[in-house]
């Protein structure tokens, strides 16, 4: 059961001459909910960009379920079962909420580049999209262009689009940022439900969310993982308290 869903081995990333990720070695165990915390600018989003193939790594190794993925483009990584969300909402603004979700399901349901299926006749596909729409509580906004949704609604859509389909590994980058308390509670329950039986790696600033959801926490500071362990261990870790938690709670 301790097989790694994602394995990072001495991963480094330089932008120009600045090294932003400075040798990250980390195992994300299959089936765990793993939170990454750390101050702004620590390199958490960059780490996600490297894992999901958005940027090439400078050196090191990244594998997904035991297979190297660090040289693959994003669409091939996604096809191997890794799906990610964006800290800065990334949706299709002119397509409706429903269409956004349906697009997220297409590859997964095997439609590929088909130009012979009529979307409206694909019962299973549409049922799955409607179901997701309900899950993220946007049924009332089904046909509204996603670009016109309120901020929190777009964040919910962002989560919905990421968990759509049956990716085995889900990466969420600050999924609840900017949400109200009740919206956050709803999102936490949703994430919990939708990641059942999958591996979750998430960046999160809200410590309540982190302790509610995660069973493992890693702390990234200045491009390195300074601590990794169970929530109770992290809470008790002096170095973490000094570097991060203390600063937050003060």
């Amino acid at each position, binding site marked *: 059961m301790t097989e790694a869903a994602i394995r990072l081995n001495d991963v480094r990333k330089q932008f120009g001459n600045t090294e932003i990720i400075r040798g990250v070695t980390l195992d994300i165990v299959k089936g765990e909910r793993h939170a990454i915390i750390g101050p702004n600018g620590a390199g958490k989003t960059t780490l996600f960009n490297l894992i999901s193939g958005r940027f090439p790594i400078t050196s090191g190794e990244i594998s997904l379920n035991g297979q190297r993925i660090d040289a693959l483009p994003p669409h091939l990584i996604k096809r191997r079962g890794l799906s990610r969300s964006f800290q800065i909402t990334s949706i299709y603004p002119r397509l409706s909420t429903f269409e956004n979700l349906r697009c997220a399901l297409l590859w997964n349901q095997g439609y590929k*580049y088909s130009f012979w299926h009529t979307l409206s006749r694909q019962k299973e596909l549409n049922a799955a999209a409607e179901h997701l729409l309900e899950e993220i509580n946007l049924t009332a906004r089904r046909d*509204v262009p996603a670009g016109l949704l309120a901020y929190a609604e777009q964040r919910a859509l962002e989560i919905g689009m990421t968990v759509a389909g049956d990716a085995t590994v889900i990466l969420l980058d600050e999924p609840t940022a900017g949400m109200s308390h009740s919206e956050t509670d709803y999102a936490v329950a949703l994430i919990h439900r939708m990641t059942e039986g999958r591996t979750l790696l998430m960046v999160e600033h809200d410590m309540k969310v982190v302790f509610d959801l995660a069973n493992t926490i890693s702390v990234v500071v200045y491009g390195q993982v300074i601590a990794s362990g169970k929530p109770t261990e992290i809470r008790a870790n002096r170095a973490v308290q000094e570097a991060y938690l203390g600063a937050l709670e003060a």
Partner: protein
Amino acid sequence: MSTTLRAGAMPAPRSSLVGPIFRIFLIFALCMALPWLFYNYTTGRHSGFMLTMFSQMGMMAIFALSYNMLMGQAGLLSFGHAVFFGLGGYFCIHLLTAAGGGSLPVPLEILPLIAGLCSMLVAIVFGYMATRQRATAFAMITMGIGELVATAAVMFHAFFGGEGGVSSDRMIDRSLFGLTYSQGVQVYYLIVAWSFISILAMLYLTTTPLGRMANACRDNYERAQFMGYDPKFVRFIQFALSGLFAGIAGGLSAITYEIVTFDSVSGALSANALLMVFIGGTNAFGGPILGAVLITLMQSGVSLISNSWLVYVGVLFIGMVTFAPAGLAGLIAMHSPLQQAGRLKPLIVPYIRIVVPGLVTLIGFVGVVELLSFKTIGAAQGKKLVLFGNPIDATTAQPWLIVTGMFLLGGLWLWREGRWFHTLWEAMMADLKPKKGAAQ
């Protein structure tokens, strides 16, 4: 007015095909009946001018729609789309000669499709180069491809026939329906049939996974990657299919005119595609058809009565881009919330108040343009100037003063009415809000 025309405010694509299909069948029936409105019962003949114009509209509608598969649906600005229209034409004219000579046992009705498939092969090759890029780089590559083919068309005489182009004879006596195509109306029906098939096929494509992912890549190609799609490949297939339909349109043109020249691959025709699609509207499926009809009307109709028709097309284009960037279809779509609320009636008087000064300005503008163009070209050709049915002496000051006055004062009047109309429109739209607010 521009605030109400934001692309984001456009309704999301429909998922049902029933409505559009019914409308297309209705339009098809009307198209079939159209030539009989211009049938001269004393001579027993159709109006040749009208038939040619309607035929041109049909092929331009296909061409414009195929262009919109790139521009509106995939967000790709191409400056070389005429390449696929023109090559389709050249392929078809050679096929026609081969079929007429007996070396190709294929009925004439099928030739546009074969020409389209040949065009698609070319689009696959060029598309492989162009669609690796998007945005400006894509536009530049398509422009390069356009120039390349235009140059080739003058250089390689065997296929392109040089300056004179390639001509053939469509009366090859090989038809699925026993038609000779000696009459324009038969060709027109062939065009209607192929337009109908092509439009339906292109409409169908918008409802498929590929069509939707083309929209998705247009909106946010990066997100599409993280959904398992390669945006380059989406663009590539879309490009190839768009080449197919452009080729069919070109093939129909070859059959209609029995000649294909270098103009058909030229940058001017590529620009024309852009013009038609933009004026018609890129967001609605049918927009480019409206654009094709309007531009063809100006090209065939207005060009008959005025040398300056290109000026009018240019001004129309600038006006649309400035005041109605969503095109004619966008203007129509703007009214749908009011129509649904049953509030179109209160707009009748405001529209009259817009149209009257609009007409005055238009007449003034046309007068100025025609007088100027008469001064520079017409007079030298020893012609007489006739404006709106009246012979006019351009050497006296009076006509100049009248048209300039109409143009300037009309423009001022229009501007004032326009502002009033804009306020009224905003108020009407704001009035609708509470009704829709329930969903917010």
